[in-house]
């Protein structure tokens, strides 16, 4: 292990927490959105789909600004959440989670939607004839059979949350211990020539965490494939 500053370790721990939470929130939300997009038919669906994809199309900084304007303490939604639920995202690590979720949403939603659409509709029909309603069928048939996509979505979401920088630093800034993730720490370190080593070390650590997540997801996927064949 390279000799990292305590600050850097804090950033690693924070990144881990943010990425884990972003995955935990991002996956269920994305699953619901993917289901709506895969199966729903309603006016404005294309627009809805487009909005989900926006964070991919726009530079992250813009998404970060949009979040700051909307969810900042003075933003319309931010003020509402603060007053009625006491939820504050601005300049908190929870805001970094929100940024990561929003940024990874298009990727996760697409992966899960792809898997949902690949589920053989005839199995869902069979479920119906056995008395299962749409919701039961979703949880007992569609969802388990979409597991490959959900797993891919989770992996991509986790990885993206580790690497997300532009939207995060713009939305919740780069406050040590609160919102300075690995990505922001790399940026901070790279501001001075003496920081190059630390930036490299942090990059390597981020890569290792990402690789570990990837390997874990492959193991789960293999295990899943084995039990179902």
């Amino acid at each position, binding site marked *: 292990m390279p000799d990292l500053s305590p600050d850097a370790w804090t950033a690693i721990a924070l990144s881990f927490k943010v990425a884990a939470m972003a995955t935990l929130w991002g996956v269920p939300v994305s699953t619901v959105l993917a289901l709506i997009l895969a199966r729903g038919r309603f006016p404005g669906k294309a627009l809805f789909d487009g909005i989900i994809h926006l964070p991919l199309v726009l530079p992250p*900084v813009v998404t*970060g*600004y949009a979040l*700051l*304007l909307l969810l*900042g*303490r*003075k*933003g319309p939604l931010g003020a509402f959440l603060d007053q009625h639920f006491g939820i504050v995202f*601005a*300049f908190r690590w929870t805001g970094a989670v929100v940024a990561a979720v929003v940024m990874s949403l298009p990727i996760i939603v697409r992966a899960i939607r792809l898997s949902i659409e690949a589920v053989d509709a005839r199995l869902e029909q069979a479920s119906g004839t056995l008395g299962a309603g749409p919701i039961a069928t979703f949880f007992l048939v569609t969802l388990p059979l979409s597991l490959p996509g959900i797993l891919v979505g989770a992996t991509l979401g986790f990885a993206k949350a580790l690497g997300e920088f532009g939207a995060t*630093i*713009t939305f919740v*800034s*780069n*406050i*040590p*211990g609160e919102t300075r993730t690995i990505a922001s720490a790399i*940026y*901070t370190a*790279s*501001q*001075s*020539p*003496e*920081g190059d080593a630390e930036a490299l070390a942090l990059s390597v650590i981020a890569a290792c965490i990402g690789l570990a997540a990837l390997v874990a997801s492959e193991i789960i996927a293999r295990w899943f494939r084995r039990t179902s064949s």
Partner: protein
Amino acid sequence: ADQIRIFAAASVAPSLQKIADTYKTGKDVEVQITPAASGALAKQIEAGAPADVFISADLKWMTYVVDKGLMKDGSTFNLLGNSLVLVAAKDDKVAVDFADKASLPAVLGEERLAVGEAKSVPAGAYAEAALKSLGLYDTVSPRFAPAENVRVALQMVARGEAKLGIVYGTDAAAEPGVAVVATFPETSHEPIVYPIGLTKDAGQAAADFVAYLKGPEADAVFTAAGFTKPAE
């Protein structure tokens, strides 16, 4: 413990951190430095960010927050100055004379000139102004390689991707891979300044720290990093 929350332009942050580390010892204060692009910091302060002190890398973002009424009246002043220099890779023995209008284009040839992106990187804006006043802008701007931050511009030069670069004196001093080829005359651009100010949230601890930044201990650190005294 009192907490002093400083939103600082990324280029100032490393020196600031050193000063804060010294300042803290023996005192019951915490100094929290949040580095980012000046523009992002300004908008975050507007959005209610937890900041006591704002150090901007240029005047316009300080003006922005002052105009929005976010700063304590009369608390802003120019903390630091900087110089603008032309750099080349360390082993690249070149010489440029700004007095000779043909000199810079000749040295540059078909190669690239790394600069900060004028709109987003203050050093880029100064470079643009300086070249204009020297009458070189129209000839060399097609060869610009605008970078998103000065560190990247420096690396482009150090790695030989760009022949020359225009950066701050502080950056040139810190990067061993480059050497200063020429320094832009102070008259060729607006004075380079780093304004500092206290936000409306700031308490006495923050004010004390800002006062300390003007003192000799801080000055030694800033000078070592290549910062100059600000023009008034």
